[in-house]
C-alpha cells in the first residue's frame, strides 16, 4: 500500500497516515487479515517520528479498522472493513464540509440525528 504525507498540509501527519490506510482499505488495495507494515518501518521510510505513525494506527484501531496485537503488529480487521472504511472516509468528508460552511459541531450532530430519525 502507498503511504503519503504532506508536510505543508494543515492535517496532522498522524491523521494523514490514518487516512492513507483508510483509503487503501476502502479501495481494496489492502484486504482484511493483511498485516500493515510495522510502524517503525513506516516512520523510517517516510522520515517521520515513530509516535506519529503509532498515533495514526491508534486512530484506526479506535475506528475498528485495524487490530493492534503485541508481536503481530497491525492487522486489518475481518468483516465489513472496506465498506466501513468508506463510511469513515465519508464521515470525515461530512465534517470537513460542515466546517467549511461554518456549521458548529452541535449543529452538525443535530443534522445527523435528524437524518437518523428520518431514515427509520
Amino acid at each position, binding site marked *: 500500500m502507498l503511504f*503519503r*504525507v504532506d508536510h505543508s498540509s494543515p492535517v496532522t501527519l498522524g491523521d494523514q497516515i490514518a487516512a492513507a490506510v483508510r483509503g487503501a482499505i476502502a479501495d481494496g488495495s489492502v484486504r482484511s487479515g493483511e498485516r500493515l*507494515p510495522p510502524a517503525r518501518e*513506516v516512520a523510517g521510510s*517516510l522520515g517521520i517520528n515513530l509516535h506519529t505513525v503509532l498515533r495514526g494506527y491508534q486512530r484506526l484501531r479506535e475506528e475498528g479498522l485495524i487490530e493492534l496485537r503485541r508481536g503481530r503488529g497491525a492487522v486489518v480487521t475481518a468483516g465489513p472493513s472496506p465498506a466501513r472504511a468508506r463510511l469513515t472516509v465519508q464521515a470525515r468528508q461530512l465534517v470537513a464540509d460542515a466546517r467549511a460552511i461554518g456549521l458548529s459541531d452541535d449543529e452538525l450532530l443535530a443534522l445527523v440525528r435528524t437524518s437518523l430519525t428520518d431514515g427509520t
Partner: protein
Amino acid sequence: MPQTRRPSVTARRTLVAVAPPVLAAGVVLSVFLSLRDRLPGRMATHIGPGGHADGFSGQGSFLAVTLGALLGYAVLFGGLTLWIRTDPGVQRVTAATGGAVAALTGWLVVAVLRANAGADDAASVTLPGLQAVLAFAAAAVCAALGWAACGRAEEGDTASGPSAAAVRLPLRDSEAASWSRVSRSRALPVTGVLILAGALVVAITAGWASALPLLATGALLVLLTGARVTADRRGITVTPALTSWPRLNIPLERIAEAGHRPVDAFRDFGGWGYRARPGASGIVLRSGDALSARLTTGSEFVVTVDDAATAAALLNTLADRERRTPTGG
C-alpha cells in the same frame, strides 16, 4: 555531473580477486625454488594442533597441489566477481574474499616451506602457532586493501535519471511517500515443508543429530514464505516478511529507471529465491508481476510483487527528486 567513463568497476574488481592468488602462486614458486636444495625429499605438509607435523607428501606433489589451489582461487573468485556483477555489494565482498583466501594460503604455504628447510627428518618439523595468527592477519590486511581497491560501484557510471516516457506518481515537493507490500511465495514454503518431512524421516531412522542440517534448511525455507518490498526515498528494500534481517537495499542513486513486467520464475531465472544471472538479479518468489529496476550499471534488478506499477511510478518520481537535489531530500 558528466564524467569520463573510467575502466569499468567490474574489471578493477576482477583484478582485485585474481591478482592476489596469482601473486601468491609466484611467491610460493620462487620461495620453493630458492629453498629447493635444503628441502627434505618427503616434506611435512600438514601441521597438527600441537605445532608438530602429522601429514607428509613429496616435494613435487605439494608444489603442484598448492599452485593448483592458488590458480583455482584465481579462476573461482575472478569468475564469481564477473558473474555477480549485477550486485556490486556482493561483488565487492567476493573480490576482497578472494584476495584474503589467497593471502592466507600463500602465507601458510611459505611458512611450511621455510619450516621444512634444512630439516633432516620431516617428522621433526614444527611450526609455531604464531604463523597461523600471522597468516590470518595477512588475510585481514589483504581483505582490507582489496576492499579499498574495489572502489564504489557508482564511480565511472553516469547518473542519468528515468526517461521522460517513464510513468511517474505525481508528488508535491512537500510530500513524502512510501510504498510497501508483502510478496508471498508458494514454492519456497512447500519445499521447506517437504525438507522438514524429510528431516523427520531422517531423525527417526538415523537420529536427531543427522537430521539437524535438513531441519535448519527446512525451517529457513518455511520462514522465507514472504518478503516485504518497500519503495521509498531509500530506494528498494527487501526483507523477509517476518523479520527485519537480512535486508537487501538498492539505493535510489543506483536506480536509473523503474518499471514493471511479468516474470516467469523458471524460464527467466531458473528457479525461486535470490537469483543472479548475467545482466539481471533479484528476488523471485513466484511468477507474475514484478518490479523491475534498470540500474546505473546497466543491469536489471527484479523483485516479484503485486501492484509493482505503483512502486515503479513512485521510484521514478523519487529518482527525479534525488537527482534534482544530489544531497538527497
